[in-house]
């Protein structure tokens, strides 16, 4: 097993583009640490077994593995939809298992999540869908407009701001979802099969966008079945199988290369 590279310094570019000051003085610590995590569901199914994983700030990680390998469970643990049976999930220095329930929403704002099925609200426009993420967290109205306009221009949807999801192409819908995930300036973007519903060309577009966001300093973790994309990008690849991490290599391919 190859060890993950030392964390890259967080570029200040991120603060500049996202328009919010980040305390540069804070010592670098991994965005995410999983230590000896085991998840057993109440029906006795072992979804994850003794998983260890460290994701440093600024990393771009592909999470691969067959269906049922534990990718979805891992993502549920990260957003504290589920709690580990054993072990620790530490996000930005906080152990999620010991996080009081009231603190969970605050923690979730450190994560932006993107789904295969976009999960946009059909009755709201693109602009409103993105603004929704800020409204529900009680952001003052004066701060919402500039933040939403900024991320929409980042994902290239300024023109489509007034349209509703049904009027958009699949790629545009996913870009809306990415804008929503990004708008509250998260430490980590989790993308769960973001290209699963999209054709190859649009998939590349979405991937380019995620890479660009990563270049701005946001850590990205992407679960995918798209072997071509994973193999050609040569990023860090974490492979799960039957709940275990069977491979963790930087510059890896989708399949094991011996």
């Amino acid at each position: 097993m190859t060890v993950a590279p030392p964390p890259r310094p967080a570029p200040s570019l991120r603060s500049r583009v996202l328009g919010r000051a980040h305390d540069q003085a804070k010592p670098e610590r991994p965005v995410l640490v999983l230590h000896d995590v085991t998840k057993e569901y109440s029906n006795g199914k072992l979804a994850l077994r003794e998983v260890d994983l460290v994701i440093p700030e600024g990393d771009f990680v592909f999470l691969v593995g067959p269906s049922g390998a534990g990718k979805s469970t891992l993502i549920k643990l990260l957003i504290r939809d589920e709690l580990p049976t054993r072990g620790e999930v530490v996000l930005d220095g906080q152990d999620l298992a010991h996080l009081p329930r009231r603190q969970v929403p605050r923690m979730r704002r450190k994560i932006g999540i993107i789904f295969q099925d976009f999960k946009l609200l059909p009755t709201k426009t693109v602009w409103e869908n993105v603004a929704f993420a800020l409204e529900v967290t009680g952001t003052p109205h004066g701060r919402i407009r500039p933040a939403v306009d900024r991320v929409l221009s980042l994902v290239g949807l300024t023109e489509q701001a007034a349209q509703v999801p049904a009027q958009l192409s699949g790629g545009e819908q996913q870009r809306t979802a990415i804008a929503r995930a990004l708008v509250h300036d998260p430490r980590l973007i989790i993308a769960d099969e973001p290209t699963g519903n999209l054709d190859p060309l649009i998939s590349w577009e979405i991937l380019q966008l995620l890479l660009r966001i990563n270049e701005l300093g946001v850590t990205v973790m992407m679960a995918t079945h798209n072997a071509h994309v994973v193999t050609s990008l040569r990023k860090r690849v974490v492979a799960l199988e039957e709940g275990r991490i069977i491979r963790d290599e930087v510059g890896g391919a989708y399949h094991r290369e011996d």
Partner: protein
Amino acid sequence: MSLAATATMVLMLLLLAGFWIIQTGLLAGLQFTEQKVEVVGYVQTNATASQIATLQARVAAMPEVASVSYVDRDAALTRFRASMAAQGREDLTQYLNSNPLYGSLEVKLVDPTNVRSVGDALRADPIVRNVINIEDLVQRVLTVTNVLRTAGTVVLVIVGLIVLFIIVNTIRLAVVARAEEIEIMRLVGASDAFIRWPFVFEGALVGLIGALLTLGVLAAAADPISSFMADFFRVLPLQFGSLTRDLVALVLGAGVGLGVVGSWLSVRTYLIR
């Protein structure tokens, strides 16, 4: 939520209010029946007015007794004649030389279960000739009224539970329809309170509007119902003022309460994890 939930709310509240009105009428009727129980002691013809007054005062002082009235012999005769005339029968007393009736002490009771102790107290007095034994009859009447009272309460509780479940489930359907919105709110980090309050507020609003509509229907129906029930209310002196006040409180309380509880419970299933 909106229309379907409000309509359900109105129908359920009407059901609840209807059964509650019936229960109130039933209770009043039963109470009225029980108050009819009277202990009557006939007084010897040779008793003096002061003896009778003393006995009357003594019985009136008993805690079980609501009121005591003395019907003297002449009044008893007048009453007898009136009742004969009312039934269209011939007045046989006109053939008598003297009044054959006795004066009587008529005792109204606070609680009909005390009929025995009051009867015994009357019997113990030497000026009392006899006391009609109505204890068995009273016992039977009380058995019937108690059964009816319990049955009415049980039916009302069951109706209340049915109303609770139907309203909670209707609201749940409305919340389920917005499950995705709730999920997105959770994922972008909305606090539980932030997610919950619009639903609870909407539930309270649906409850309030439903309750007001229900009260409107009841108010519109009040006149026809009361003219229909006029005979009933003539027999039963119900206090209609307190009935109206209680009904308004019941409908408003049940409507808003069920709306809030229903929303709270329905949203809770999405928040607990």
